[in-house]
């Protein structure tokens, strides 16, 4: 969509929303956005999903205190194995059945029960509780990353668009370079570096996400820069300049309402993709590492353990479903916001 026409449409819609006539009552612009957002059933579903996950992850462990994140169920477990041997003595067949009873310290791979709502994993941790703690990590990490990316992107894009010239050129070429960096491979390298430097397993995911922000800001920067440049082109800006008003104040005054809707939409959509990113890293055993829980880490086990993959769905499927719900929720919200904030949408 052409930025200019979009702005025009915005201007027009703002104009038309001011009632000329005192007897005519219209919808307030805020109410219109809210109404458009909530009219779409998908955005409501998305909101419910995300809010639900937040409650589950942050209030869940406070209410459900039966097990901790890294608390093993040491109630023990007995494993039975039966072996049969057939002997033939004097033409007659005898079967020797031997039962071995093995006592194990940890109650691992327990099926779902009242004790463990979703059973225990291959180490003996409670799956349900780890889902909550995993959710905390995923949500916190994604929010931090998106927040940092947006701030960095707004600053860089703002500088590039505002000052222009050589500064703009340098920043934009830097964007070109960063966009060409292969994402996952680079994070793999960084992760290896973190491994070598012996950082605490609990904090490495945060560090990793900070590195991720350093290579992910160009998208936001380009958006902000584009907006500033198109604002500069606007005739009322030129008029303001001609009349001796400070353009910088005007730019920021107009920039905020122009770029905010797009930023909000982009943020909610990138929240989804950050959750996916984090989960993928954890799945590759590069993000959150054992014994700490993350949704991706909880699925990691099946890449090496066929038995869990086939026979203990309760260990890994719930984590996958949580990821899908989170990503889907943010995507629905982002989509709903895009429709609600689009001044051209008329229905």
């Amino acid at each position, binding site marked *: 969509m052409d930025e200019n026409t979009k702005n025009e449409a915005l201007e027009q819609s703002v104009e038309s929303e001011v*009632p000329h006539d005192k007897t005519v009552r219209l*919808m307030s612009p805020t109410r219109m956005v809210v109404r458009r957002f909530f009219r779409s059933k998908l955005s409501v579903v998305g909101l419910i999903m995300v809010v639900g996950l937040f409650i589950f992850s942050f209030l869940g462990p406070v209410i459900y205190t039966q097990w901790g994140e890294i608390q093993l169920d040491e109630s023990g477990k007995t494993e039975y194995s039966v072996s049969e041997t057939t002997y033939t003595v004097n033409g007659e067949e005898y079967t020797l059945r031997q039962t071995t009873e093995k006592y194990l310290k940890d109650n691992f791979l327990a099926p779902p029960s009242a004790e463990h709502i979703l059973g225990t994993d291959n180490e003996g941790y409670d799956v349900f509780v780890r889902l909550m703690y995993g959710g905390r990590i995923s949500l916190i990490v994604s929010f931090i990353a998106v927040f940092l990316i947006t701030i960095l992107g707004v600053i860089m894009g703002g500088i590039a668009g505002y000052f222009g010239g050589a500064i703009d050129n340098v920043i934009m070429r830097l964007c070109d370079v960063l966009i060409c960096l292969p994402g996952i491979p680079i994070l793999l390298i960084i992760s290896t570096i973190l491994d070598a430097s012996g950082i605490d397993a609990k904090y490495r995911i945060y560090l990793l996400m900070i590195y991720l922000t350093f290579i992910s800001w160009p998208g936001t920067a380009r958006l902000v820069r584009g907006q500033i440049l198109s604002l500069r082109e606007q005739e009322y800006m030129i008029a303001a300049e001609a009349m001796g008003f400070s353009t910088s104040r005007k730019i920021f005054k107009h920039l905020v309402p122009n770029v905010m809707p797009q930023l909000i939409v982009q943020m909610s959509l990138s929240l989804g993709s950050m959750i996916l990113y984090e989960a993928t890293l954890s799945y590759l055993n590069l993000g959150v590492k054992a014994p700490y829980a993350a949704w991706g880490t909880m699925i990691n086990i099946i890449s090496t353990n066929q038995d869990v993959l086939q026979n203990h769905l309760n260990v890994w499927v719930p984590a996958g479903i949580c990821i899908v719900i989170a990503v889907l929720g943010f995507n629905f919200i982002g989509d709903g916001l895009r429709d609600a904030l689009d001044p051209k949408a008329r*229905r």
Partner: protein
Amino acid sequence: MSSNYLSGKEIRAIAKENKKVMKRLEAYKYRKADESEYLTQMRDSSNILEIDSLHTYFFTEQGVVKAVNGVSFDVPQNATVGVVGESGCGKSVTSMSVMRLLQGPTGQIYSGEIRFKSKDKDGVEKVYDIAKMPMDDIHKIRGNQIAMIFQEPMTSLNPVFTIGQQLDEVTFIHNPDASKEEAKAKSIEMLNLVGIAMPERVYGAFPHELSGGMRQRVMISMALASNPRLIIADEPTTALDVTIQAQILDLLRDLKTKIDGSIMLITHDLGIIAEMADYVVVMYAGRVIEKGTVEEIFHNPMHPYTIGLQKSKPTLSSDSDTLFNIPGNVPNPINMPNYCYFKERCSRCVHKCSGDYPEMVQVSPTHFVACHLYNEE
């Protein structure tokens, strides 16, 4: 200020009501129907188009916008009818209703009749009620009996096809058996007809390679290619330079005689009307307030609004330095008052004007006006 905004409850009520009506009208639009359902009779056989109390509404979140609110006028055969009014008065929506080009589901013909006398290839005349035609049958009329020229020549041509491809298409619609060469010959003939100097070159050009005037000529040639009985020209010259405007208008006038059809010319420019039209329809806020022959409207305007319009036209002979302007604004199309819409801006307002909306008064066989000043009772 906040009392000027709708409450959440009202918004929900509007949305609910709109949804119901829109659903019904959409279903009606896309229904399957036999031809007999929309066959009708002309009131006057010398007309080619009769619009009869047409209501076209837009169902918005803010409420129902009655963009066309009971418009009636006729387009006689071989005549040019000018529809004039300020922007937002519903003149374009009227033409879109005739073409059935309203953007659904918000824009809908709510009620009324649009009778059109069509003539198929074998010369058989049939009268259709366009407002009742299902969308599946609309191609019987649209593009081949009625053609339209739009206001925005810059964006009205598809940027990815050449002029030739877009013109040939029209020939193929009406004559699917035509060969490529025939279609090209016809297209070039059409380009010639609208006075394009190098038709061969323009034929192979993309729209962005042509100027605005050239594009409008192409649009006109496209409208002509199907030998329509009625051309609707929606502000065909508004986006063009004054010199080009004159050329395009000359072209349109010539063409009317050449194709032996009628033109419905929509404009806000009284000068164009005076030059081109045989009949004039003056619209205001979705209603026809005055209609008559061009002489009647220009020499004997009756409605205060028409008089105001003419006064506000700049002339060289006028002595005054300032332009006349009609005070106030067009009322908001949502929740229209049920008295005369012009009352608040009218300088000749009488006591009666606070009453019901004025009826059409016939002042001569062709001249009608909707104003209480001329109401005898």
